[in-house]
């Protein structure tokens, strides 16, 4: 496997980014869902949001790298898809980028709305760039709904990928597996 992407398949960097972010985002979704219902006296009441914020910001960093990497690499072809499939596939792939940016930036704004920084695993602080009254509420709505839409897209994307992995394998190659 190549480091860079080719016309036939994704390279190593893209694969590591793709699978690590898929794993991290799924865990973040589950963690976020679970942590907002925690009892005040739960031992995880503080550590769960700390972990969620820290991992979330690392995923935001990974997303920046991923977008840059996408822009300087060729795109593997999707010639085996029907025109309808291709349109849907491209819409889903392109939809992920703005949604993930909205998801992670809004999460950052919830925690930094009053000027507080976010402590990432105790390694470093990410400072607030905007402090505005009520920002946490608007950001909270965006965060919640973009998370649902991202997960819905991920389900569609996974179902389509599995279909092409096991149902109609046209040329026996696997772009991302």
């Amino acid at each position: 496997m190549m480091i860079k992407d080719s016309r036939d398949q994704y390279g190593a960097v893209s694969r590591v980014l793709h699978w690590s972010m898929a794993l991290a985002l799924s865990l973040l979704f589950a963690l976020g869902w679970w942590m907002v219902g925690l009892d005040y006296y739960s031992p995880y009441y503080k550590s769960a949001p700390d972990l969620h914020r820290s991992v979330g910001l690392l995923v935001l960093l990974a997303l920046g790298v991923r977008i840059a990497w996408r822009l300087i690499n060729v795109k593997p072809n999707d010639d085996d898809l029907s025109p309808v499939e291709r349109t849907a596939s491209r819409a889903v792939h392109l939809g992920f980028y703005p949604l993930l940016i909205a998801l992670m930036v809004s999460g950052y704004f919830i925690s930094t709305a009053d000027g507080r920084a976010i402590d990432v695993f105790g390694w470093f602080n990410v400072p607030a760039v905007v402090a505005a009254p009520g920002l946490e509420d608007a950001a909270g709505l965006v965060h919640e709904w973009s998370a649902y839409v991202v997960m819905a897209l991920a389900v569609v994307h996974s179902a389509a990928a599995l279909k092409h992995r096991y149902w109609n394998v046209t040329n026996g190659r696997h772009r991302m597996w």
Partner: protein
Amino acid sequence: MMARMFGFGMVAVVALAQPTVAADYEIDIKGAHASINFRIPHLGFSWLVGRFDTFSGTFSYDEANPAAAKIAVEIDTASINSNHAERDKHLRGADFLDVTTFPKATFVSRSVTADGAGKAKIVGDFTLRGVTKPVTIDAVVVGGGADPWGGYRQGFAGKAKLALADFGILKELGPASKEVELDLHVEGVRK
């Protein structure tokens, strides 16, 4: 010259005479000479202090007959401010104030019992989260009189205590944190 002095004298006499008549006051929101503060024990280890930034209200007060005083206050529940945006977001949510469903909290006095020495118990209907319950405010007259800018002001301080569960706030914050204390400061400008 004499006429002018006489004029000032008349104003002074009228001003002195007026406190014996019940007067209506508007709580000084513009100048922020009023505040609705709360505090609740955090784990029983310290006090978490916050306030409501946005509210309005009026009262009527007659120094000679304090038992006839009335006060009505409306609080914008979304304006809760505990100096931590993430916590305030949680406090505005369904676990606590549920401000999208219940954007206002109100207090309307029903009866005032004055001790004649500047202290009073104000019993009124407090509505929070759609639940109305009687709440007693222990109030004290702080002061009142002509201000330096041509107005007339009257101010009070008050304390009250309420149980969160009484108003449908059932989120468990621990055994030390069942009740919230209100620390109220009100200055009104006579209308």
